[in-house]
């Protein structure tokens, strides 16, 4: 991305990849950003046995789904704002439709529903097999505003692209 330009979807995909790579927990689990538009962000959590919540029955830990929805919804917030701001999770609600099963990646799609002066409202959905959702999440994020966002946050998100521009 060159200065003064609106980031493209590809710029945002690289920026959110940097964002989830800077999060120790999701970096170690190998979370990938697949696609980003101002409205929708898609991610993929590759399978590893540490995601299990019940070894005997081979079921995914429900908390993995909550963690993934928090990450996907929290990331989707950034491209929906006029400029990147730090937005911590205010609250999160997760409905578990069916258990996740061992051995398959988990996909996440997060969508920004509405941005107000102080809050960003989001929704997310997870699946392993298309058309068979595992869980739905509703997450609200607080806008801390430019004043409480560290200097250089936006630059850090897009730094690599600037170097190549």
């Amino acid at each position, binding site marked *: 991305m060159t200065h003064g330009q609106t980031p493209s979807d590809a710029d945002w995909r690289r920026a959110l990849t940097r964002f989830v790579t*800077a*999060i*120790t*927990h*999701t970096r*170690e689990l190998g979370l990938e950003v697949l696609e980003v538009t101002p409205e929708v962000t898609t991610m993929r959590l590759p399978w590893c*046995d*540490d*995601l*299990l*919540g*019940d*070894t*005997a*029955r081979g079921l995914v*830990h*429900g*908390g*993995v789904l*909550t*963690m*993934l*929805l*928090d*990450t996907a919804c*929290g990331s989707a917030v950034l491209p929906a704002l006029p400029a990147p701001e730090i937005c*911590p*999770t*205010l*609250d*999160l*609600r*997760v*409905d*578990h439709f069916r*258990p996740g099963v061992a051995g398959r990646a988990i996909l996440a799609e997060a969508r920004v529903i509405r941005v107000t002066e102080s809050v960003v409202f989001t929704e997310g959905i997870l699946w392993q097999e298309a058309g068979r959702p595992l869980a739905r999440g509703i997450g609200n994020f607080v806008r801390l505003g430019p004043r409480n966002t*560290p200097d250089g946050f936006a630059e850090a998100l897009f730094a690599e692209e600037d170097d190549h521009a």
Partner: protein
Amino acid sequence: MREGFDNVEWLARTRAEGDVEAWLALVPYARRIGVSAVSDDPQGEGLLFRLDPREGNVGNVLLPALHGGVVAAFMETAATLDLMLATRAPRLPRIVDISIDYLRTARVVPTLARCSLLREGRRMGNVRVCAWQESEAVPVATARLHFVLGDPAEAGA
């Protein structure tokens, strides 16, 4: 004896012994984030759970702070295991929903949680969880969860 939540005898025995560590051994994600049960609660008001402040649980390196989703996974683990001990008979809880409110930044220090079973019906249970770091009076997050209370004999089929 084969270990597993779907083994009725194993579940009944570990439950009678209050062997939460045996249960945690079968929950890989809880082990990864470092959940343990704290037995000696000085107030003697039941079981406490603890989340280890490990590097892999960080969600914001600038602050630094724990990942909110990891805190939620910790609270869900605590609620599930606490429920398995607290029900009238051995049950296999299956989560229906969780709602979590983040009250303060969770720093990278030990986090504790206490659960209360607000209702045990024939099919459903409602659990409230409070998580804190420095003092129980200053919670970092609260959550409420619904579980279906499964029959362990049916799960073992």
